[in-house]
Structures are given as C-alpha cells and as structure tokens.
C-alpha cells in the first residue's frame, strides 16, 4: 500500500511592510505603497506654503512635473501631539506625501485583520486593518485615507491663487510641523 501523499498547506501570503512612528505611535504601511522616502531637508527647497480652509494638516505642497503632492502632517491627521517630522513618504497612486517622525524597521505581515466593526468613525478610512507583530498590534494605514476627495478639491482650489500669482516660480519654504 502506498502511503498517502503529504498534504501541502497553502502558501501563506505575506506582505512587506514598513513600520514607522508618528508622535511615538507605531504604524505600518505596505512597502509597495511607498514610492519614495525623502528627508524633510531634501524637500524643503521645493515646498510651497499652502492654506486651505479647514485643512490644517496640510501646510505645504510640492510640484512634481504636472502634479502637486500635498504634504500631510501625520500627527495632525491622527490627532496626535505635534512632533517635528523628519521624513516624508511619497505615497504611490495618491497625491499625498506623509510627514512622519522616522522609520522603525521593515517587516513582513502574514495576516491583516479587518478593523473590527466597533470602530465606526473616520478610522475606517484611515486603516486597511490591523496586524499582530511580535505580540503587538499595529494599524496598517490606507494610503488613500489621508486626503478625501473633498479635501483634495479644497486643496486644489487653494492652489489656484498660488499658480496664478507667479506660475511655477514660487519660492521654496522651510517645512514646519
């Protein structure tokens, strides 16, 4: 009699993530969602100040070719204590550049659990879900969740006067939290 063939378990789907901190709080983002990591210093020369009514988390915009990237303060977005952002994640397929304190490490996520439905407010837009890593629970951010379509419209409207003022020749300013 031939022994039964060993049962192959389905391969575990994994995802590379970047663990990062904002105001001491740990978050994760899929590394596939991060197009670029830049230091604040390297962006400050290209950043222009912007003020859109009701959107305090965006103070600067950076021109990238024919599109504008809005620099979102992660601390203000999540309602955390202000902290001096040191790095910027340029998030792929969005117009968001996220200001963070620093990168903790790269890791691999084997399971993303949906955010429990008890969480029923804005956090449902903020997070793709939660993951357990080294006996810690980390929220995994949704790159599109930092700026809603309404906020993008308001920011675009705030850009118009800047562009009309002096075209692309707006001087860069220091990035501030």
């Amino acid at each position, binding site marked *: 009699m031939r022994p039964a063939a060993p049962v192959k378990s389905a391969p575990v789907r994994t995802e590379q993530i970047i663990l990062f901190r904002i105001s001491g*709080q*740990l*978050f994760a983002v899929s590394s596939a969602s991060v197009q670029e990591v830049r230091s604040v210093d390297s962006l400050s020369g290209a950043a222009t100040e912007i003020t859109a009514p009701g959107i305090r988390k965006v103070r600067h915009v950076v021109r990238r070719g024919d599109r504008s990237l809005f620099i979102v303060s992660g601390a203000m977005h*999540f*309602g*955390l204590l202000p902290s001096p952002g040191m790095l910027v994640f340029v998030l792929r397929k969005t117009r968001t550049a996220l200001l963070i304190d620093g990168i903790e490490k790269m890791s691999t996520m084997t399971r993303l*659990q949906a955010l*429990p*439905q*008890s*969480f*029923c*407010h*804005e*956090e449902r837009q*903020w997070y793709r879900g*939660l993951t*357990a890593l080294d*006996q*810690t*629970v*980390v*929220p995994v951010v949704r790159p599109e969740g930092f700026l809603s379509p309404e906020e993008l419209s308001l920011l675009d409207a705030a850009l118009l006067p800047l562009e009309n003022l002096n075209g692309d020749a707006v001087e860069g300013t220091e990035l501030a939290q």
Partner: protein
Amino acid sequence: MTVSAELELQSFVLLRLGERRFAVAANQIAELVAPSRVFRFPHRTPKIEGVILRRGRIVPVCDVAEALVGKKLATRRLYLIAVRHYGAQREWVALPVTGECELINAEMSATGEFDAPHVAGWISHDGDVIEVLDIDALTPGPDEVLAEVAVREAVEARP
C-alpha cells in the same frame, strides 16, 4: 417546578460594574479572561479604548461602565468577551468588569416602553431586579454613525 416553567428559564452571566450588577444572556458570551495589555492607536470612536490580542484574534475593548453607571472603571478584574452582531456577521467585543461573574438561570421579563435601548429585559435574582444588556445596542457599530448622521441632518434641516 413544572416542565413549562423550566422551559422559560434562560442562562445569564451576571457581571459587576462598580456597585451595580448587570446580566448578559449566556449565549452571547464567548469567554471570560484576565485583563491583558490593551493596544491603543488613534481612532475616533469614543466608546472603544483599544484592542486586546486573544488567541490570535484582535478584539476591541469597549468600556460600557460610563454608559451604564456614569463613570469609567478605575479597576478591572476581568474581560467578558461578548458576541456582537453586525447583521449576519458576528464579532467579539471585550467588556471590562470589576468583579467576579456568575452563571445563573432565570426567567427574563420583557422591556417596557420607557426602558433604554440597551436593555434587553429584566431578571430577578437574590432580591435584586437586574437589567439584561443588549450587547448590540450597547456597543458601537455602523448603526450608531447612521443615527448620528440622521440627527445631524434633522438639525440642519430645521428652519
């Protein structure tokens, strides 16, 4: 006790929040566990304080004491892990409690029109009349947001 009276009895878990006792139908309880680390992260749902890890599952912690006894719990002895329904879906939610829990059998009386939405019924035990909690009404969920939106729209629609 007659057979018909026996059939009316249901099992309830009695829990303590401060000085008061409440009951939850036993079939809505998944387990009772010792307090463990609460992981907190930014969110905007006031009743939820964070999540705990339990057997590989991430379970939200909902302090219901403020809604039921008017203040948050200073100490917590156990987490009662209850089953919360979201339509056809079921999820666990951890409720911190201050004392030992007890399993009893009792007959539940129906609610009256003036009872709060979180009251599923009443039971009588040891000379006390005890509220039976409706976990779905007591803990947050999408319905709560819909209700908030409806209230906001009604206020905005007023002339």
